[in-house]
């Protein structure tokens, strides 16, 4: 356990060194806060940009606070996922390429703690960034529109966190299975995109698909209650996370012994 903690601390320190603790939370804040601000100032922006004929009147309905918060949250499942995957894809593949992994594994470090400490490190970063970013989006929405109940905020936060955890785990898996960080990132992104599109298109068949967690979080914010399929979807997400994590340790071990 103490060995695991050492590896974990190394991860945290390394993320300080390459400023991940600064730029990932800031990116999440800017991504989320942009939504309430632009939807609040949209009428003024249109007016100042001009180009409308004299006397043209069109009403932009004021969105509800829940809808604004949901659209801010949805930024995290598009650009947020992109940032996470591109930031995580190198964590194992990169170290293997540069030879750091071999240097660490010469010592009596178990493969399990090597992979899981990296996984836990990037997970901590993602959850903290998501929390800071989403909290500021919630605050801005409250200031400009209406306050969304804090309970709904936390529920949708956990649902999104679960989906992003799945993304991180899949990226870690491909990062340990493949030598090239670029290929690992590309495959993870393609997979996440394919699953999202597929379960979006067949949403009545795949209610339990983990990528539906994002739309359930949105539904909670706009409609005020959780769809019934949230629990199975979360359970499926947890199972898949566990399977991918175990597989990545397994694959990493085989690859590392073979080379």
């Amino acid at each position, binding site marked *: 356990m103490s060995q695991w903690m050492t590896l974990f601390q190394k991860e945290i320190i390394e993320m300080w060194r*390459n*400023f*991940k603790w*600064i*730029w990932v939370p*800031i*990116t999440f*804040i*800017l991504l989320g*806060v942009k939504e309430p*601000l632009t939807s609040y*100032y949209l009428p*003024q*922006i249109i*007016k*100042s940009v001009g180009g409308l004929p004299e006397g043209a009147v069109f009403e932009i309905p004021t969105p509800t606070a829940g809808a604004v918060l949901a659209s801010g949250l949805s930024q995290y499942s598009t650009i947020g996922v992109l*940032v996470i995957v*591109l*930031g995580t894809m*190198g964590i194992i593949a*990169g*170290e293997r*390429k*540069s030879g750091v992994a071999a240097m660490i594994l010469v010592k009596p470090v178990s493969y399990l703690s090597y992979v899981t400490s990296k996984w836990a490190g990037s997970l901590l970063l993602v959850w903290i960034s998501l929390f800071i970013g989403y909290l500021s989006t919630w605050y*801005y929405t409250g*200031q*400009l529109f209406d306050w969304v109940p804090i309970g709904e905020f936390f529920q949708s936060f956990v649902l999104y966190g679960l989906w992003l955890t799945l993304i991180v785990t899949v990226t870690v898996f491909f990062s340990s299975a493949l030598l090239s*960080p670029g290929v690992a990132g590309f495959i993870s992104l393609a997979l996440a995109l394919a699953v999202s599109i597929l379960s979006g298109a067949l949403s009545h068949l795949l209610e339990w698909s983990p990528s539906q967690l994002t739309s359930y979080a949105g539904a909670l914010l706009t409609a005020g209650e959780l769809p019934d399929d949230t629990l199975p979807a979360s359970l499926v997400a947890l199972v898949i996370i566990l399977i991918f994590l175990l597989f990545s340790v397994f694959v990493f071990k085989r690859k590392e012994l073979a080379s």
Partner: protein
Amino acid sequence: MELLEGMNWGLIAPLFIIQLILLIVSLVDLSRIEKTNGPKLLWVFIIIFVNIIGPILYFVIGRRND
């Protein structure tokens, strides 16, 4: 100017500040790092002139993590 007066600066100022932090951090990192993906000078311009997205792009793509 009407647009500027109608804004709530208490809400917008913090965003400028964190954007500035992002800009400074990325420039500091760029000055310390040995090699980037692509010419270093190019990244200086991207960070300074591409608003908000420039520094993020640098950290995501420009930085070499080894």
